[in-house]
């Protein structure tokens, strides 16, 4: 016991000294923010990208919906009210996923339904895929009038065709769409591998896609690559010319595909209608 007392006789003085030192440092350190410094080097963008005539914001991030836009209705609304919000012209309609009848394979080519594919997401990439199963569903509902529809990185048109220009600025476009009259416009075509809807088996590389006609040229404005995981998105900022069935034209450009919080497939679109 005596040995112990002798060994630790210095402790009380040291405890006092330690407490004083800790206090001094604590006071000095109170000057520094507990929640960090240099917060102003980061951006706090406005909650929504500003919309106006010629610029449209569509949150197409949902896997389960198409977002329809009628250029004519939008143009009419803007003519009536210059403060009209272009995104108010967008109509959301869900993708049908409920099975209507039992079937292992589509009875006819291009039948309405969900086409389940396995994708080589961990290996060669999503361009390598194998058909697994067909689930018949109701036909996709559509508004009475519409021009183009958006689903994440997919775009379809209502009987229109699309040409990708080399222009990357709307203001550089020729004055008239007649300049593109002889361009090779491409119509929508059947697609059962890109409109990803059901993702319950996603981790096994299995995705249920809606079988539907999409426009591969216009959909090329936003491409998704897997791997890597999470997917890598890349934007094509070329201006696309849409030739509508009634003979009018629209020019479209994807300006951004992310929300201010970084959510993918929130589309900021520059447009000219009629072009």
């Amino acid at each position: 016991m005596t040995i112990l007392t002798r060994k630790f006789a210095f402790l009380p003085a040291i405890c006092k000294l330690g407490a004083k030192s800790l206090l001094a440092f604590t006071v000095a350190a109170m000057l520094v923010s507990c929640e960090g410094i240099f917060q102003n080097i980061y951006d706090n963008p406005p909650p929504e990208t500003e919309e106006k005539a010629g610029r449209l914001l569509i949150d197409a991030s949902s896997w389960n919906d198409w977002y329809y836009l009628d250029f004519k209705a939008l143009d009419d609304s803007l003519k009536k009210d210059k403060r009209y919000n272009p995104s108010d012209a967008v109509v959301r309609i869900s993708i049908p996923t409920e099975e209507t009848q039992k079937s292992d394979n589509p009875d006819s080519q291009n039948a309405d339904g969900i086409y389940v594919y396995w994708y080589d997401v961990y290996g060669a990439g999503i361009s390598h895929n194998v058909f697994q199963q067909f689930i018949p569903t109701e036909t996709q509902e559509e508004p009475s009038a519409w021009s183009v529809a958006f689903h994440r990185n997919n775009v379809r048109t209502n009987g229109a065709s699309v040409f990708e220009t080399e222009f990357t600025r709307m203001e550089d476009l020729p004055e008239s769409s007649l300049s593109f009259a002889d361009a090779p416009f491409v119509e929508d075509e059947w697609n059962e591998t890109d409109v990803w809807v059901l993702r319950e088996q996603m981790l096994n590389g299995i995705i249920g896609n809606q079988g539907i006609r999409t426009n591969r040229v216009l959909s090329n404005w936003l491409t998704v690559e897997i791997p890597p995981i999470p997917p890598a998105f890349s934007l094509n900022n070329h201006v696309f010319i849409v030739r509508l069935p009634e003979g009018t034209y629209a020019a479209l450009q994807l300006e951004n595909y992310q929300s201010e919080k970084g959510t993918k497939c929130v589309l900021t679109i520059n447009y000219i209608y009629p072009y």
Partner: protein
Amino acid sequence: MKHSFALLILLTALSLSLHAEEEPADSIRRVSRKAATNSAEQTLDEVVVTGTQTYKWKADAPVLTRVISASDIEKTDATDVEELLSQEIPGAEFSYAMNQLKHLNLNGFGGQSILFLVDGERLSGETMDDVDFARLTMSNVQRVEIVKESGSALYGSNAAGGIINIITKEQTEPLRIDVDGRVAKHGESRFRGAVGTSNGSVSNTLNVERTARETYSVHNGESPAAQVYTTVFGNQKWNLNDKISFTPNEKFKITGHAGYYFQEVYRTIDTPERYRDFAASLRATWDITEKDNLVASYIFDQYDKSDFQRLTGYDIRDYSNVKNSFRTLYNHFRDDGDIFTAGAEYAYDYLLNTHLEGPSKNQYSCSSFAQYDWILSFKWEMLSALRFDYFSEGKNSQITPKISLRYQPQPELNLRMGYGRGFRAPALKEKYYLFDMEGIWIIKGNPQLKAELSHNFNVSADYKKGNYGITASAYYNKVQNKISTSIPHMLPNEGNQLFLEYINLDSYSVYGSEIMLQGHWENGFGTSLSYAYTHEQLPSDKEGNSISSPYIPARKHALMMRFDWEKQTSEKRKLRVTLNGRMLSSVKSAEYIDYYDISKGMRQVEYPAYMLWKLSACESFDDKFKLTLAVDNLLNYKPEYHYMNTPVTDGANVMIGCAFCFNKQR
């Protein structure tokens, strides 16, 4: 727990009685702070501090410590701690986690259980559970100390699997300027500059480093057995560090440090990911008397992550971890060689993370510890330590004991054994995460998580005679309540949405051994051979279900070899040739056959073995200019599949470097 305390008390009492009978040990066993910081480099390599928080001769330290010296670092030409450990430590393997962030497995312990320190201070931030290794640059590093046993009794949480302490250089010469550059394939480049000045009482060292690499693709064969990567993302990094020391008199010293780190990773062209760190610290060291020494420090460390949206120009932060810590450490050196150490810490931890349930969380922790290093006799030494930690989040408190024994039957031989308890307090993210991971599943935190506990037992022997040395060690760890993610499952009223919740797993064990042989000869040849065996048991949850670990387990066998030869080719020219080899065995990992139907069981995925060699030659002129030519992956190994734990290589890589050093002696 009760048994641990009983053992501690028993051994303490035993050592006291022994101490009373034995004659006092030689006080040369301890090293003064000045000797430890101002001596020649060769002496510094023989001094260690990490295992006891006091400077000790390496051969006399009661805790086995592996030292990677400045000259070892130079031989590896490592840029950061990842490159260094990959070439020097056989049981260390770095693999890719999500977003190609790096995950470390060191002898069966992941990055959350290996505590990384810089000059004894812990770091903030994590990237997929590990610290950001890229910020731990090897510029201006004096040595790296590695303790592979539980350090929780001295350092607290996250040290159950060991401690890696990076110790930076002290500027002693009046002026020193170092500049070096290195280029390699895939646009890899490294440029470093350092300026150090000292007038005796004030010294300052400024280091700047920039590294870069281009994005490139790697080829994979058909039908890989598991996830592969096809692209290696490019990046650019900046590291700036300034260290200033003021020594007004022999008894008092103040050291300040400021650091900035920036990394941009080009995972996508449109939205490069950015990582930043702002660090500052102030440390005062006071030799109160010849026998008493007090250290007080304050550390600020802020680690941020942001996404730069190139299209809009917005740089949007989604993560910030800020740590403010205060530490005091007191040492009392007795004439008989014993050392008493005590310390206290306060840390405030702030976390901003857009994946949290709520924008931000914070917690504080208070700790105190005491350690007694008992020189029982010329042959016996015992170290015992006890620490108390309190975390405000969940009102979690931990008491952590440790005891180590060293027996030196002859001056060349040291036998050591020890027991240490380890723990890891649940991280804020593990308690409060709630986010949809890209539609795959929802990651959900668990506020009820308990701290992860471990019991570490270790034995070692090291023998050093003349130019030869051999070290052998073995360890056994019993881990309880390991924190991990659960089996993917659905929750009531949540439809078919999958959830991954954080849970405490059932007990499991990790054990292994390591042997290292070192030697050098008068003709300039030197060699180092080390082998590590690791057995990592597959953990299961409390219900007995096998759990697929988020990371690939440790490889059972790892072998490292280094052969170097140095020759003075003329009066002013010196040539050094180094050959480094690394062989890692294959490893099997249990993974779910179907994540959505775990009743299908698990499959064993085998990840292949590999071997890598690096040959480098360095010609130095008058110790001022150096030219280096190196071939990494000398045998041109091209992996068939690039799995997450496959080395990042697509064949041989030629590296060319040159360095200039100006050194003005006092």
